[in-house]
């Protein structure tokens, strides 16, 4: 078991392994991002990336076909894209369209190109597609009036019902959770080249802190949303259409607010973490209810 202590001088807010599971990027309130090389039991600090002027909330690795690229978002309202070349990290793009803290950043599925989804406390989400020569063309959407706390892409999927031989219609979607207690599903419209609200899911009684779309393309789509109201709701939709079904992961409230939700790569297990400094794992049983599957405590 790899264990890294005191990587940062302050609270850690995110830690993500890259595509191959070889490198770990962590970010912290100390305004830095650290990149570790992880190999079995050992780890080695490769670099410390400094550039943000505020606490760094989230980091995300881009798909390796684009190079060794990392995106980070911070309280300073910026999204910085970092690239490693020959062992040296440099900032290759700064995205500063938001007027408040950027709370989450995520790369789109690589099939869509080099595209970032950023959610900010200014109530907007922005989708930035990096095109040639550093020109970026952000699409900015007013998503949640008080602030957007999290945004997550759906896995690449296609609309059902395409006739044989016909190219099935691409279904490019993402989900946002905000301080208006709502979860919203957005869908890309390739004709207008923008994202339109597809569904609004209400069920939480307080700020939605994190949303996570299951990477699985199994029978149904799953979205997990965790909230300040100490609940986690799993929303599911059959065959990418129709209404979203609401399932509470646990009937009773969790002991403390929930901060983060994460799906395993094939979407079987949901990991929730919250204010009680505990991580709980959940698994859907064959009857469609969620059962605890484990627990991690520091």
């Amino acid at each position, binding site marked *: *078991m*790899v*264990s*890294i*202590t005191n990587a*940062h*001088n*302050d*609270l*850690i*807010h995110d*830690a*993500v*392994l890259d*595509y*191959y*599971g070889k490198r770990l990027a962590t970010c*912290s*309130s100390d*305004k830095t991002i650290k990149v570790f090389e992880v190999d079995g039991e050992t780890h080695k600090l490769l670099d410390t990336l400094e550039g943000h002027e505020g606490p760094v*909330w989230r980091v995300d690795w881009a798909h*390796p*076909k684009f190079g060794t690229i990392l995106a980070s978002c911070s*309280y300073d*309202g910026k999204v910085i894209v970092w690239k490693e070349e020959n062992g040296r990290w440099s900032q290759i793009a*700064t995205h500063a*369209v938001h007027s408040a*803290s950027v709370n989450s950043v995520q790369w789109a599925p690589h*099939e869509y*190109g*080099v595209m970032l989804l950023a959610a900010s*406390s200014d*109530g907007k989400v922005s989708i930035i597609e*990096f*095109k*040639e*020569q550093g*020109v*970026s063309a952000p699409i*900015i959407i007013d998503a949640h009036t008080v602030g957007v706390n999290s945004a997550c892409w759906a896995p690449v999927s296609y609309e059902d019902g395409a006739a044989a*031989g016909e*190219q*099935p219609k691409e279904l490019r979607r993402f989900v946002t959770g905000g301080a208006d207690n709502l979860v919203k599903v957005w869908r890309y419209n390739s004709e207008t080249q923008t994202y339109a609200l597809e569904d609004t899911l209400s069920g939480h009684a*307080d700020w939605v*802190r994190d949303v996570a779309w299951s990477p699985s*393309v*199994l029978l149904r789509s799953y979205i997990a949303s965790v909230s*300040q109201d100490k609940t986690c709701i799993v929303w599911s939709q059959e065959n990418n259409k129709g209404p979203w079904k609401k399932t509470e992961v646990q009937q009773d409230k969790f002991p*403390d607010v929930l*901060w983060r939700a*994460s799906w395993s*790569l*094939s979407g*079987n*297990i949901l*990991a929730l973490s919250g204010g009680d*400094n505990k*991580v709980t794992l959940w698994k859907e049983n*064959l009857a469609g209810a969620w059962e605890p599957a484990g627990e991690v405590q*520091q």
Partner: protein
Amino acid sequence: MSINNRGDPFDSPTFGKSLSLKVDGGFNAISINPSARDVVLASRQGLYIIDLDDPFSPPRWLHHETPWQVADVQWCPHPAKPHWVVSTSNQKAIIWNLNRSSSDAIEYALHGHSRAITDINFNPQEPDILATCSVDTYVHAWDLRSPKRPFYSTSPWRSSASQVKWNHKDSNIMASSHGNDVFIWDLRNGSTPLVKLEGHKSSVNSIDFNRFKSSEIMSSSNDGTVKFWDYSRCVTNSIKTVQTDFPIWRGRYLPFGKGYCVMPMVGGDNSVYLMNLDDTDHEEEFGNTDCVEKASKLQPIYTFKGHSDRVIDFLWRSRHSHDTFIDDREFELVTWSKDCSLRLWPISDILYDKVNFERNKRLEEKLPDYQYMTYNREVKGNVVDNSNDYKRVKENFVTTSGLTNMNNVNHLNWLSGVRMNDEHSPADMFEEPKLHNLGEEVSAIGHKFPKVVFEKISVSTGELVLTLNGPWDENDPDEYIFLRIEVKIPADYPCKGNAPRFRIEENDKLTSATKQKMMKKLNEITELYTDSGLYCLEQCLHYLLGEEVSMDLERSIDEPLFYLDVPNVSEFNDFSSVTGTDMTDASVESSSDSENGVFKSAYDDGAEIRNTFGRNLAMDSTPVPNECGAIWTSTGQLLTFFSTDNKVDRKQRTSLKLTREQLETKAQEELKSDKDNVNNMLDGQPSDVRPKRYVDTLVKKDAASHVSDSSSSEESDSDDSFGSFVDDWNDIVGNDIVARTQVPALLGNFGKSFGSVHSESVKTGDSSRVIKNVIMVNDFSNLITESKDLALQYDIMTEFPEEMARHNALAAEKYGYEEISHCWQILSDMLMAEKTDSFTSFTWNSNPLGIKWFMKEAIVHFELEGNIQMLSMLYCVVANLYRDNLESSESYNVQDSYKSLVSYNFDDSKEVWKSDVNSQYSTNNTINSQGDMSYKSKILASLDNHSIRSDEIAGVNQYLMGTRVANSRAMPTSKRNSNIGFPTPIIPALTRVTDISVELIHDDVLESFRNSVHEILEPNDIIKCKRYVLMYAKLLYRWGLPMERVKLLKMCLLSSAADLHDDMFTASDLNRVNNNSIEVNWITSSKTDNFVASCNYCNLRIKGNMFVCGNCQHIMHMDCAKKWWAIGNECPSGCGCHCPNEYDVSP
């Protein structure tokens, strides 16, 4: 909102006044609109367009990120193209069209230089001509009607160019400075300079042609001299040299009169110096043919002094009457400095006289007229540029909706950076802390009342819309009501009789009686203040927030509203979490108290370190950051991170709890009276004990850490003024959960970053204060249904599916996957049964014991379980069966004869007719298949356009696999076909084979095979399963098992190009793993590239000789092919083709 976009320059509210604008963001270049209304600032983030007539409106931001500092920006000086701005972006020059929307404003990018451009200059006569010069020593002249390449280029080769300028009179002449020399070029003269002016001892930074005498030019240099040249008379030396005591960055002639301005690079008091050109000397010299150089010292007649850092550039803003022959131009100096301020400096009439500028002189030709309008507003959509029909364009262009798009710039902060003054005393006006206009008032109250939200600020039209929460509920005085208020402010405010008018929006909680009472009081306040010519918005807001408003003017005047250190003040306000006045009162009351002093300094430190990025903290809805988290990794491990607290922490926590109780009892009365409303401010809910917002925790952590300080030093807390933060404290420790989660923070983690007091204690080695955190990887792979171990063990490709199933069952058993093992076991048995029964005419497919039923159930089950590995593997079995089937069906005909597949058809009476057709129309058939083939090769080509590598093509081949497998054995047929001249005879054969394999078999024995293929899975399931396979393939790839992945894809991808698209990039990832040196351009994803293919052996790109297998179309370097075929006979791409058997591999 109706802002006058097409005004008269003489209506300008800012012309002739001093003005200072703070613009942060590292802007390095500035230029002014010819109509002198807008200025453009350029930085690495893009351009800001600032309307000088409405400096309170935020700038328009044209976003353009470049890694390099913008060297120069210039607004097109021609009346014909007032919407053009050119800026540099390293080696490119970018022409912006401001009539377009900001996201799409780039009209041209001029790319001709190989290194950074240093200067750009529009031709003063030809609107479409401009010149650029660069570090690469070249000077290019461009015609924007054909912007692809420069129409004129020249270079002195030796040193990089610093400036290029066109002659004002002769549009064929331009000058450029290179190193210490200045070159004059004539476009008609080719690249031979007309004149080379030598004389400076250090490099020349700036050159400028005389506007009135075409052959005169001035040059300013690092050697501290300004030289004036007249190359028509004298080329060996300058006619005049002026010595200064600083290196000169810019030196230019005045646009009026006879004079010039210089500006230092360093030193020189950060000022701009204005000199006159002594004309009398000139006249004397005129007859003098031998060039005598006059030398003199710099004798400024005026110095524009006031910037605190070096001036980056200066320019002239001018205005004159429309359509006139009278030279009534007025000027104003605009300076942009490194201290991030833009200033306007009015020019007095005395100055005009001093430089011999005769105003109101009759002119021979009209002065050029420019449309006086601003480009500051965002343009919606594209407006067709029609320069002939000017007026119409303007009408379309004017939009009033610009401000809604201004989300990039915080309006309040922008406002606070604007200072304006009527007085002609630029030197000291900037320091005077006094309100001068509405904009400053709004900015000041905006910072003073962070909880008041300004929805709309329009200083120029005097409109404000603001929202706030005030205690106006009749029933419950503690209840706060959300109010939305419109304020209309007359233009002459705050003069007597010009009181602002308020309008409170309807609200169901607000009774009409209260509303009337409020309106009455507001009117009283506004009248009282405006009668004395005083600004009154602050008092109105105090009233609206439910505070006492002093109607005693004398007292309130003593309290200055204006804060110079605006950010600090806002911090302080926000922190105290009580309203503004309460805060000031409190600090006044307790100013003698030392405790309060400490208190305050702690905030100041906090404010300094805690960067709020100029936001209104009351509106900051950033949630409390997570302190722990868990993220799944691809291998079924869980990456977790926690913040930890150790035993020492816990001890301190209990002691703190005690302190808290003491504090609570002591300050109880205070708490009751003073209700904090920061938390419910945003969502309107009654006070929520748990902080949600990041800023709240910051505030509280500061306060909390302060409490910890005071408690540890046994500080007595009987002081009354302490109550205000006990109040905060109470908020934090409102319940135990909060107390618990707050503790780590309280013990110094935020103290470290935000409070210098605590960072000291960290330095002294108090380890308990250092935050501890830990990142762990926990193995939960047992929970994940997919297993890497199994993936390694599983057979994917086999000739005998039943054995594969058996093998897999054993593998699953070995790793303890009982259920999966059972499943494989059953499947194996069933397959075995199928096999042995295959020559009987009965199948059990739909029987509950049959394989079809079993597969369906298994799929449903594993879908519920979400086991993608199993789903894919099941499909794999089916695919194996399919393959198997094809091979066996084919083996029949192989045994039959080599003649052809068609002959086989004759056995089937039902197919006779069809086969007949086949043979009869054989020519026709081949033509069809030829078309077919070309279609397929088209797929290949198009795939290549998407820069997919050969493995992708392997994918395509797999798409054809079902047929190809048969095909490879059917080579004799195709060879026969090759006589009719097919270059690659395989594919025609292919189509025929497929036809046959599906249609021809009408035999009981064969029936069972057919069924096993087509009916084991339903079409819906097949589609689904293909998706699972793709997903599993990705998983395999992430697990670092590319071989397994390829096998899987090969087996299962009997899919269309769409599916291929889905998996398009994973194959190139494969390449990446195989060969890390492959450079993937991360920016281009779908750019159509030239035909690029890689060798399937070494993975490098192929140029020159290559080997192409005529069967599977895979390619290799000639050398690689030699090496490869020496050791094996299967295609290195893994496609399964035995190339040497099918094709002549000898080079």
